[in-house]
C-alpha cells in the first residue's frame, strides 16, 4: 500500500536510556511518551491521547499495540483507530545526548479521515457498476474501543460476498462513515452514505447513534440494520435490529453470577443513554424473578473519565455484584478505577458489553473478576470459527485487534444482507428487508436465524475474563 511517511525529530540533552524510560511512565512527557500501557512489551495494548485538533477539542484516542520494541532504541506501535497505521520511535545516541525521531505512516483512509474531520469534503468515488453498502462505525470517541475490528470484518465479509459473485452480478462496495461516538455526527455521516448511493447501512454504533440516525433518515429509501447488541424497539419497515437483547443476556447470566459472587445484592451502573437505561429496567425484572435485589443505581454520560464518586457509591452500597452497562472506553476506565479502588475485593462484575478488545484495554489484572455474556467469543469451539479466525489473521496479521461479538456481528449482518438482497427480486429496499426477516445461516457463533424485524435467534455464552482472553461456558 502506498503511504505518506511523516517524520519529526528532536535532540534531547540526556542519555538514550533516560529518554526511552519516559515511554508509558506518565511523567508529563507529551502525548506520545505519556502513552497509556500496562507494560512496554511486545503485544501490549497502547492508548495515545493525541490533541489532534487542538487542546480545546479534546484528545483523539489512537488505539494500538506495541508491535516491536528494543530497549533503549526502538518502539513501534501499530494502531487501528482512528485509522490503520504505524508509528516508529527511534532513540539514538547523538553526541552526549540523544536524537529522537518519530516516523508515522499515513495511508488513504487516514488522510481521508483527517480531511473530513478538518471539514473538507472528500468524495467517495464512483459507485456505478457496484452495489454500494454503508458501514457506520466509530473511529473515535468511546465506542472506537469496541469497534476496533469492525471495519476489518466488514471488509472481510464483502470480499467473501464478492468472491461468491456479489449481488446480482455487481460487486459490493463498502463505504465507511464515522460517528465519532456522537449521535449528531453519526446522523450527518449516515446521510453522507445515503448521498453516496448506499441502499443499505450497517450501523455498528451505540444505540444513541442508531436511534437518532434511524429516525432522521425516515424519508430516505435506505435499509438500516443494527447488527450489534441493542435494546430493540425500532424494528419494522426499513429498520432491522439484530444482536443480543439485554433481557436474554441477563436471564442467561443472573443465576450463575449470584452463585459465583455468593450474594444477591446488585448495583446497576452504566452510561446515560437508551441502551443502558433499558438494560437496567430489564435487570430489575430479571433479578426480581431470580431472587436478587437492587441496592443502588448510577449513570454517567458517554465520555466520562472520572468515575470515583460513582464507585464510592458502589462501595457504600454493600453490593455483591456490579451490573456494568458502560461501553467502550467508558467501560475500560470504569473497570480500571473499580479495580484500583478495591471493588474487586468485594464484588464481581457483569458487563453485557464486555468483549475482547475492551477486556484487552481494561488489562489482565483489572479485568479479573469480570464476566461478559454474548453470542460470540473468540474461544468458541468449532470448525467454522477456527477457519474464520484463520482467515482474519491471514488478512490482517498477528497485531490486528481481537474479534468479538460486536465486530463479528457486522460480518454476519453483511452476509445475511447479501442472502436477502439476492433473494429479493430487484434492488428494492422493502423487498430486501422482507427477505432479511426470514434469513438464517451457520456462522462462527453457530446457527443464526432472523425472525421478523428485530429478533435474532442465537446461543448465548457466559464468559469469565482471564489473563489473555475469556473462559467461555454455554449459558442458554
Amino acid at each position, binding site marked *: 500500500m502506498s503511504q505518506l511517511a511523516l517524520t519529526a525529530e528532536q535532540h534531547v540533552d540526556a542519555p538514550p536510556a533516560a529518554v526511552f524510560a519516559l515511554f508509558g511512565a506518565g511523567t*508529563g512527557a507529551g502525548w506520545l511518551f505519556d502513552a497509556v500501557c500496562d507494560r512496554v512489551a511486545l503485544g501490549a495494548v497502547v492508548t495515545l491521547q493525541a490533541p*489532534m485538533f487542538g487542546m480545546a477539542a479534546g484528545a483523539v484516542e489512537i488505539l494500538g499495540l506495541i508491535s516491536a520494541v528494543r530497549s533503549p532504541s526502538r518502539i513501534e506501535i501499530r494502531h487501528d483507530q482512528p485509522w490503520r497505521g504505524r508509528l516508529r520511535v527511534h532513540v539514538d545516541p547523538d553526541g552526549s545526548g540523544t536524537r529522537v525521531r518519530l516516523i508515522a505512516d499515513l495511508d488513504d483512509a487516514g488522510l481521508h479521515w483527517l480531511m473530513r474531520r478538518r471539514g473538507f469534503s472528500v468524495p467517495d468515488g464512483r459507485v456505478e457498476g457496484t452495489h454500494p453498502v454503508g458501514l457506520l462505525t466509530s473511529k473515535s470517541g468511546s465506542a472506537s474501543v469496541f469497534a476496533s475490528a469492525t471495519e476489518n470484518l466488514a471488509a472481510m465479509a464483502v470480499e467473501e460476498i464478492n468472491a461468491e459473485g456479489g449481488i446480482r452480478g455487481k460487486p459490493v462496495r463498502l463505504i465507511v462513515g464515522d460517528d465519532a461516538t456522537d449521535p449528531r455526527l453519526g446522523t450527518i455521516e449516515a446521510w453522507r452514505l445515503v448521498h453516496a448511493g448506499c441502499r443499505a447501512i450497517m450501523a455498528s454504533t451505540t444505540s444513541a447513534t442508531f436511534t437518532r440516525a434511524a429516525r432522521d433518515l425516515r424519508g430516505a429509501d435506505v435499509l438500516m440494520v443494527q447488527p450489534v447488541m441493542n435494546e430493540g424497539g425500532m424494528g419494522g419497515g426499513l429498520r432491522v435490529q439484530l444482536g443480543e437483547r439485554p433481557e436474554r443476556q441477563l436471564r442467561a447470566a443472573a443465576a450463575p453470577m449470584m452463585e459465583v459472587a455468593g450474594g444477591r445484592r446488585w448495583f446497576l451502573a452504566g452510561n446515560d443513554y437508551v441502551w443502558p437505561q433499558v438494560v437496567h429496567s430489564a435487570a430489575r425484572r430479571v433479578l426480581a424473578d431470580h431472587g436478587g435485589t437492587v441496592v443502588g443505581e448510577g449513570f454517567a454520560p458517554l465520555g466520562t473519565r472520572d468515575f470515583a464518586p460513582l464507585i464510592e457509591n458502589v462501595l457504600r452500597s454493600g453490593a455483591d455484584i456490579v451490573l456494568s452497562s458502560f461501553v467502550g472506553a467508558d467501560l475500560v476506565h470504569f473497570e480500571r478505577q473499580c479495580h484500583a479502588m478495591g471493588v474487586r475485593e468485594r464484588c464481581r462484575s457483569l458487563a453485557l458489553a464486555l468483549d475482547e478488545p475492551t477486556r484487552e484495554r481494561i488489562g489482565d489484572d483489572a479485568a479479573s473478576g469480570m464476566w461478559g455474556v454474548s453470542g460470540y467469543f473468540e474461544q468458541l469451539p468449532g470448525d467454522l470459527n477456527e477457519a474464520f479466525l484463520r482467515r482474519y489473521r491471514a488478512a490482517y496479521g498477528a497485531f490486528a485487534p481481537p474479534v468479538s461479538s460486536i465486530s463479528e456481528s457486522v460480518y454476519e449482518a453483511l452476509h445475511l444482507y447479501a442472502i436477502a438482497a439476492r433473494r429479493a427480486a430487484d434492488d428494492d429496499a422493502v423487498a430486501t428487508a422482507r427477505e432479511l426477516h426470514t434469513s438464517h445461516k451457520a456462522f462462527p457463533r453457530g446457527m443464526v436465524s432472523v425472525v421478523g424485524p428485530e429478533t435474532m435467534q442465537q446461543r448465548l455464552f457466559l464468559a469469565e475474563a482471564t489473563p489473555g482472553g475469556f473462559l467461555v461456558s454455554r449459558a442458554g
Partner: protein
Amino acid sequence: MAADEAFDALADPVRREILTLLAQHDECSAGELSDRINRVGRTAVSSHLRVLRTAGLIAERRNGRFRYYSVDATGPAQDVIQLLQELFQGSLDAAKAAVESGAADPDGSIRRAM
C-alpha cells in the same frame, strides 16, 4: 481547490512519493526529485508534477531555467500534513522539556503504574 481532484491526484504511488519528499524537504528542484525517485524516469516525474500542480497540491517556483516545487500551503493535503507534523513535533518537544527540566528520572528507573 476541489478535493476530488486532489484525490485523483493522490491515487498514484509515485505522486504520493513526491508529496512525501516535499513534505520532508521545504523545496526541491525537479532534478532533485527525479534523483530520489528511482521507479520511474525523469519525463514521468515531470508529468506527475504537472498533475499534482493542476490539482493544487504543490506549488511551482521558477528561477532561470530551474523549477522548484513545494507542498501548496493552502490545500487540504497540506492542511492535514501540517496538522500531523505539528502534533508529532509537539510530542517530541514536550518529551525534551520533561527530560531536560528534570521532571523525568534521569537514570531511567521510573516506576510504572502497574
